[in-house]
């Protein structure tokens, strides 16, 4: 991987586009951002206060009152646009960070794990509360049970129009197909 300074750069004519990939602990967020990103994903820490508010200046902040959460950040340059991908944890205690990440985002790809389907509810609550458009990709693990997608849709109580697919977070083509399904869904909502 190229060093920071020799990394390819976008031009100022590129439109920055934000996409968020969210899901519970261990679902494959870091993996899918790595599969999609043209740069070595940046793993950054966001500092939050215990109350869940974002720290936006460092004055008066002591370790006791703050907690950090890891964000994966990737970049994918397309002709005319540059996608910025945020892999974000889906816990409701990060609501404030969430609100910031999804503000202006094109949409959210929710990653779900059928071995622990109930852990996706918090993420779905966050996206529903934010009123942001989303699609759901089930990241399939070797020991994942083979539920038909329709029963996953029922279990997650998804709208019939919400895209739901199986993906392999390690595979760039599969990861891209999930993003395409998300963006197509957003386009249909805009056109309807």
């Amino acid at each position, binding site marked *: 991987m190229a060093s920071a300074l020799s990394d390819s750069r976008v031009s100022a004519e590129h*439109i*920055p586009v*934000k996409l968020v990939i969210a899901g519970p602990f261990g679902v494959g967020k870091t993996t899918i951002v790595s599969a999609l990103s043209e740069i070595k994903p940046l793993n*950054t820490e966001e500092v939050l206060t215990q109350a869940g508010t974002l720290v936006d200046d460092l004055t008066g902040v002591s370790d006791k009152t703050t907690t950090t959460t890891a964000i994966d*950040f990737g970049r994918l340059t*397309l002709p005319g*646009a540059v996608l*910025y991908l945020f892999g974000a944890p889906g816990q409701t205690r990060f609501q404030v960070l969430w609100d910031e990440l999804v503000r202006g985002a*094109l949409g959210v790809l929710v990653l779900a794990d059928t071995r622990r389907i109930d852990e996706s509810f918090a993420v779905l609550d966050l996206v529903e509360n934010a009123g942001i458009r989303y699609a759901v990709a089930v990241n399939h693990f070797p020991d994942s049970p083979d539920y038909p997608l329709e029963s996953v849709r029922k279990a997650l109580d998804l709208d019939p129009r919400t895209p739901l697919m199986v993906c392999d977070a390690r595979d760039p083509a599969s990861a891209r197909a999930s993003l395409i399904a998300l963006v197509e869904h*957003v386009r249909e909502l805009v056109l309807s």
Partner: protein
Amino acid sequence: MAAARLTVPEHIDVERTTLVYIAPDAATNGLDPPGSHLLALLQDGPLSVYECAAHLGLPYCVVRLLVAGLVGGGTLLTRNPPVATSLPDIEILELVLSGLRAL
């Protein structure tokens, strides 16, 4: 701390995915160390604020203020993601879709 010396503008229109680049006619001398590090990083072309923070090894919240200060001083220019209106722009969606499909 780096942030302490910055003058903080009233309204900060800089976020994680704001693209930052050097103004063509910018005076790039006489900056604080964080400022000149940022300028050196941007010599090769635009970067998002988040990438700047990661490369500088500074927290995002610090770099956001650093960028805002240098934008205020005319050294840097920015390009923001489209404003979050209720629905995204169809042209941007088509651009993203055709770009992703062509990969």
